[in-house]
């Protein structure tokens, strides 16, 4: 009744192949965009930007990237943290080497550099499959973190071994450095997330996306029907790493401002993003956002309840959070292996029939 496709007639191929074929979906999408671009930037404050919205958008980009690789192309990766570190260090080197070029271009270039590194570490995927590959990507994770720790050139020989983002502006407003305002941080991340989600959505429903899915479902069969596994797998690694690199660049330059590689981009980051796509839903754009929202909001909520309301010590709250995350992962895998995206689909199905379910 509320949500229905009946009466929504398509009269041209253009109509039929649009991103959101159902009118209600389209309206919902425009409404979300209107709120995100038109209202939130004017009402946002530092707490909401730093605790919720900016990390949500950045992790959503990372989750999109990993979802392309794992959810669409079926190549499990535990190297997300390492690739995010590549994006962060690339943008840092670019920012300090070419201060006059726009930071936005640097962020995109950092994505490009990460894509190249991703392809390099993706090469073994042609021989190694399943969780053998997952373990092989750990090599990327540990090697890259070690590299950025040990080679002083990457952190410009700074005494602390940290990288710190200098101030850069877009249209006269600071977007990196300590003087950045909350709306500026939010808008940079929002624009990136919007563009990349749009790109991901259209890539995955096009020829490339179908090739990835064929490889995911069975790579030998895909090869027989004419999908080149070399190109499909490596393009998945490239596109995925591009997204993850941009997420890493934003995380360092816009959100954290300063980063130490082992702490900010360690193995835990890889697992965090992996959890996002499991909880959100493998092979779903909406799921990447839902999973990122869930994993960003849950610790904030738990902290407010346990530390804020019950006055428990923070370390205990942190341990209980670990337990809850673990239990949630297992529960999700048992109850709904397809994640929040699937729950959303079921809700829509219910709404379609409501209030006459028979």
């Amino acid at each position, binding site marked *: 009744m509320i949500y229905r496709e009946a009466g929504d007639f398509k009269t041209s191929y253009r109509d039929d192949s649009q991103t959101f074929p159902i009118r209600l979906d389209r309206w919902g999408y425009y409404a979300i965009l209107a709120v995100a671009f038109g209202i939130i930037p004017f009402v946002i404050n530092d707490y909401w930007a730093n605790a919720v919205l900016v990390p949500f958008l950045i992790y959503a980009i990372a989750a999109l990237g990993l979802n392309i690789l794992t959810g669409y192309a079926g190549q499990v990766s535990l190297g997300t943290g390492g690739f995010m570190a590549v994006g962060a260090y690339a943008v840092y080197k670019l920012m300090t080497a070419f201060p006059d070029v726009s930071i936005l271009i640097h962020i995109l270039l950092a994505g490009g550099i990460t894509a190249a590194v991703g392809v390099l570490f993706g090469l*073994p995927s042609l021989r190694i499959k399943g969780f053998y590959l997952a*373990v*092989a990507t750990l090599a990327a994770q540990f090697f890259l973190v*070690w590299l950025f720790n040990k080679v002083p050139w990457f952190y410009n020989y700074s005494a602390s071994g940290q990288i710190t983002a200098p101030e850069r502006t877009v249209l006269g407003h600071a977007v990196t450095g300590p003087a950045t305002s909350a709306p500026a941080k939010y808008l940079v991340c929002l624009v990136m997330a919007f563009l990349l989600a749009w790109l991901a959505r259209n890539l995955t429903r096009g020829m490339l996306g179908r090739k990835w899915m064929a490889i995911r479902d069975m790579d030998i069969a895909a090869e027989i029907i004419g999908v080149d596994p070399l190109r499909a797998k490596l393009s998945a690694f490239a596109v995925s790493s591009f997204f993850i690199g941009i997420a890493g660049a934003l995380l360092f330059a816009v959100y954290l401002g300063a980063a130490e590689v082992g702490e900010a981009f360690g193995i835990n980051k890889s697992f965090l993003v992996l959890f996002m796509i499991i909880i959100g839903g493998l092979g779903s754009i909406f799921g990447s956002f839902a999973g990122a929202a869930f994993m960003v909001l849950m610790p904030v909520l738990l902290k407010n309840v346990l530390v804020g309301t*019950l006055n428990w010590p923070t370390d205990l709250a942190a*341990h209980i959070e670990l*337990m809850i995350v673990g239990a949630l*992962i*297992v529960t999700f895998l048992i109850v709904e*292996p397809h994640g929040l995206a699937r729950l959303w689909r079921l809700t829509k199905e219910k709404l379609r029939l409501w209030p006459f379910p028979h």
Partner: protein
Amino acid sequence: MDQVIFGAEVFLNGLMTGVMYSLVALGFVLIFKASGVFNYAQGVLALFAALTLVGIQDGQVPFAHLINAAFGTSLHHFGWTVPSILAIALTVLVMVLLAFLIEKLVLQHLVGQEPIILFMATIGLAYFLEGLGDVMWGADIKTLDVGLPQGISDGIETLTAGWFGYGFFIDRLDIWATVIAALLVAALVAFSQYTKQGRAMRAVADDHQAALSVGISLRFIWVMVWSIAGFVALVAGIMWGTKSGVQFSLSLIALKALPVLMLGGFTSIPGAIVGGLIIGVGEKMFEFLIGPMVGGATETWFAYVLALVFLVFRPQGLFGERIIERV
């Protein structure tokens, strides 16, 4: 000449470290063979076992921190200490109970899922156990002492000093670890070859359906295998815990066991041993020979890169079963 002797010492120490890796890898292989589950939580199991052992030994009140926070009490210890043997026995009981719960609450509901889903479930399990261990026993670094000899082995030092004019430094604990690992492997092999349950376990590993059809209870076998893996984890936890204290980094050893497995092949117990030795010696020798040139600390990644390069040439590992794929 000095360099050669020094290198030989590094080589021996690498072998000893390799034994430790093999211990963790063994637990992986057992579970993988019997249930097809790639158990990421094995390292955390070792951590949890070691934490429980220390907790029981010192007579800590479980969940003390949580109870104190919730009810405003200030419990911490019962005020007694438990002898090592009894504490180990109690810990084994806890691990068996844990195995039962894991089977009941997690594995039973995931039968027939894809391996990768099971793998991710064990990652979730690892997070849960890590949190549980901390909530139960506290997150501070603990020292574990069950009476294993420690410190430099004087006998070997004087012996080698007599041969080469240079005494080798080998920790007595490492020698003990090697002996215990060898005994453990022998016991496991004997168990799986000569007992009824061991045969049933191998049958399940071979073919779930066929094993079911001849009347073997899958659930019993799984609880048993996870219990054995819990026991192996306890042994590994005691070794690592005695060596470097019971702390979170213990669970990272599990990650090191992954390349060991990839080298040896996921399904082979000898593979786990040989893989462990190769990785142990490899990373120590690499650090000794190449490390100083590139800034050191290569041990963090060497094992993974070695496994990666190796897998490209032999995807099933050294002793793994050949991977055959059909459409």
